[in-house]
């Protein structure tokens, strides 16, 4: 069970308070109507799914209800950082 630092509450809380919501930093296209089916499908369904460093969106569902981002290693499950929406990760697979 993960021990997750909520960047809004600024506390570590148990995983049971959170929901994982998939890959982070996937922006809804600004003009959906201009998207081709392929572009829309890519936005909806196609994901990086890396083995290793992954930036993902979580929500503190049974806490402050805020969405935030986690950089996590999907192999070791180590959480490398958590950061607020609108911020960029400091740990990436390139760094």
């Amino acid at each position, binding site marked *: *069970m*993960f021990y997750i630092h909520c960047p809004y509450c600024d506390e570590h809380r148990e*995983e*049971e308070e959170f*929901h*994982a919501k*998939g*890959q982070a930093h996937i922006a809804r296209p600004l003009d959906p109507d201009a998207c081709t*089916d*392929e572009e*829309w*499908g*890519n936005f*909806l*369904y*196609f*994901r*990086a*799914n*890396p*083995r290793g460093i*992954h930036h*993902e969106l979580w929500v503190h569902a049974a806490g402050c209800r805020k969405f935030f981002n986690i950089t*996590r290693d*999907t*192999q*070791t*499950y180590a959480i490398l950082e958590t950061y607020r929406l609108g911020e960029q990760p400091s740990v990436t697979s390139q760094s």
Partner: protein
Amino acid sequence: MQKYSGFGLLKHALSHHENWQRVWRNPKPKKHYDVIIVGGGGHGLATAYYLAKVHKVTNVAVIEKGYLGGGNTARNTTIVRSNYLWDEAAFLYEHAMKLWEGLAQDLNYNLMFSQRGVLNLGHTLQDMRDIERRVNANRLNGIDSVALDTAGVQKIVPIMDCTSRARYPILGASWQPRAGVARHDAVAWGFARAADALGVDLIQQCEVDDILMQNGNAVGVNTKQYGEIHADRIGCVVAGNSGVVAKMAGFELPVESHPLQALVSEPIRPILDTVVMSNQVHGYISQSDKGDLVIGAGIDGYNGYGQRGSYPTIEHTLQAIVEMFPIFSRVRMNRQWGGIVDTTPDACPIISDTPIGNLFFNCGWGTGGFKATPGSGHVFAETLAKGEANALAKPFSMFRFHNGALVDEHGAAGVAH
């Protein structure tokens, strides 16, 4: 191939079992194959077997980074059923079911396919509507499936709590008598042995770390242990690792890899002779021929390649099991483990060509891969042999996620007014 039989056992017993042949060779890879299958799990091995047997394509290598059948084949809860809702899925899984029914004889390997029936329980009125809907669709698709009321369920599983005092009382179930379980390791080994006998090279402990490309076409793979191996066509059957292999070829898949956990009790005397599944309370259970209660959980919500998941999932699963079977409260849990399942947005597989020429993927089986093993291999073998999707595979193109023709097997949305 050395034929297995009771008589053979007797003969070998007289020579103290010193003369059994190898079940498969341990070949060094050739430079070039007609087809390379990446991934030596049940699906990959089945693909190789049917390629050789049905399509006479025998210059085939199966490349496995670990040991044969060491992925989800070795980690699942062995349930086989075909009572899927939508025509496309039902036809695919029923195709697999029909293959299962003669597979031990076909492979000359006892897979212990035990058609002891599967119950899918309903606990709410909407569950029961969904069950009726699915059972009717199954029946008209020629799949054995019936809807049972509470009394009918209780008759099949006398030890289950079917009373109304349960938090979510059992209102009924769908029942597929031909469904059941099989011995998971044997499936991989049986296909491997038979494929090897037809000339397929099974290359273990060999990890693919790149897809070789030429003019937008895949022409081979690079391996850590043996360098480049070339092929006319490449089929990737790597389940939870599909995203990783796709990335080598430079594209993404509509797939996310999640942990899926399971657990077994200590072996106890046979007490449960059928498979019981419940989506509402989230748990499923059967009892193996060794006596273990084999119990499966829901998937964990996050991506993970660690072959383990979160403990609360195990807690919820056992809560569900004890809720359905209060008498199991004093039975003890022996082991838990996790697999990596490749889930798709519509809970249906991807059997498909890709943006890369000569590169094909068979993945996205999510929590339901084991039951499809022979069917998956059979249709993917034809896809690889012909270079285009087999008729049963066609609806499962990865491009359905662009045009919207999803085959949503999540079951009805479960929203109530």
